[in-house]
């Protein structure tokens, strides 16, 4: 008999086991009673009526259902996928083709589709779990459940929303806030600025500027000789770049535009000591600096 009782959850046994055993001693269970006890154990696990600390919890007349937990987990997952999709879109590769130069966010599409499905399932479930008495306010209540977890859970005549569904709502709100913060942070980081990186000292009078991942390497070069030979290597496969040398706003020299991988040479710039910068006609965000110190 105690074997059957072991099917019941711990909180239930703490509360009912003694009197339940006393009852079974007064009336030894027949086969149907045993089946009923097993059904009761399943019910006690699916609809525990009390929280882990033993306090009564008649949530939605049946506690939090397993399927509610699954749907709530799905909403959490959907929220996470939404974030992942946004991150993937923001960090997509730069692509230049016949439409121009743009950031390719195609990798985010599967994330967005999956997130849409999961979040929609959560919203549909939310509306379906409302009691029939909520017919008139079903749509509004669904919106409330998702966007405003302040819905009165068991007020007289109020809309009853299960704990799992309420959690889904909280998850959705939190994820939207986090997503906004994340996009803001990424946007800030993606601001074009002065190129960073370790300055490179040129000793021989021969230097190479490399275009790689829509950026010049090295970003900063210091050189003493003024009769420089500047080679330009484009490592971005399929992406056109050129190397243009400016002194302030004055364009001194430029290579032809080459589609990577390719190598070319900047023709014979005559340099006096001073600050110069490199840029790319196709990608004006690409910047590098050149400091000629003189001998």
């Amino acid at each position: 008999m105690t074997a059957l009782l072991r099917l019941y959850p711990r909180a239930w046994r703490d509360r009912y086991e003694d009197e339940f055993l006393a009852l079974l001693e007064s009336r030894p269970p027949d086969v149907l009673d045993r089946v009923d006890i097993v059904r009761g154990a399943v019910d006690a696990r699916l609809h525990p009526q009390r929280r882990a600390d033993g306090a009564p919890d008649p949530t939605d007349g049946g506690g939090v259902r397993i399927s509610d937990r699954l749907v709530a987990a799905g909403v959490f997952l959907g929220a996470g996928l939404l974030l992942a999709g946004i991150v993937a879109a923001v960090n997509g590769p730069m692509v230049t083709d016949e439409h121009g130069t743009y950031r390719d966010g195609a990798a985010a599409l599967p994330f967005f589709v999956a997130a849409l499905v999961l979040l929609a399932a959560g919203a549909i479930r939310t509306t379906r779990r409302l009691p029939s008495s909520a017919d008139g306010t079903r749509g509004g209540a669904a919106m409330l459940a998702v966007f405003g977890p302040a819905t009165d859970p068991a007020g007289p005549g109020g809309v009853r929303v299960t704990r799992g569904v309420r959690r889904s709502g909280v998850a959705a709100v939190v994820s939207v806030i986090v997503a906004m913060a994340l996009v803001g942070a990424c946007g800030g980081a993606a601001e074009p600025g002065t190129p960073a990186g370790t300055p490179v000292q040129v000793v021989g009078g021969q230097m190479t500027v490399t275009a790689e991942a829509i950026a010049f390497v090295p970003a900063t070069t210091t050189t003493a000789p003024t009769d420089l030979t500047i080679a330009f290597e484009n490592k971005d496969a399929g992406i056109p770049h050129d190397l243009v040398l400016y002194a302030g706003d004055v364009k001194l020299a430029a290579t032809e535009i080459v589609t990577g991988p390719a190598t070319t040479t900047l023709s014979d710039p005559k340099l006096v000591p001073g600050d110069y910068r490199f840029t790319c006609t196709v990608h004006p965000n690409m910047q590098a600096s050149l400091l000629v110190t003189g001998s």
Partner: protein
Amino acid sequence: LTGTFQRHIYRVTIYQPSRIARRQVADIPELGRFAEPSLYILLSLSDGPKHGYAIMTDVESISGSPLGPGTLYGALARLEARGFIEALEPEDRRRPYRLTALGATTLRAQLEQMRGFARTGLERLGDAGR
């Protein structure tokens, strides 16, 4: 034709009234398969506190059908969680349960509804027979 008529009679006399009755019991919110045992338990406790075994035998004698221990305690847990009944101090492992004021009010409301339901039905049957 007879089949259709019988189905119609079934729907009118058995299916719909039982649905109405279940709807009334279900006003004890969403108790599912525990709605009927719950109502019997409230009825059983209406003349004083009883422990599990006493409730079980009492309900079986009122309803005429057996009440399993799992169902009994599933219903007791629901009624207690909703504040319709409360547990008293155990006497030699047996814990008596008592109807609360809320439970008594709820039971009374249920019974009043049933009385209205029964009276209407009986009056109409009487009218039809005249």
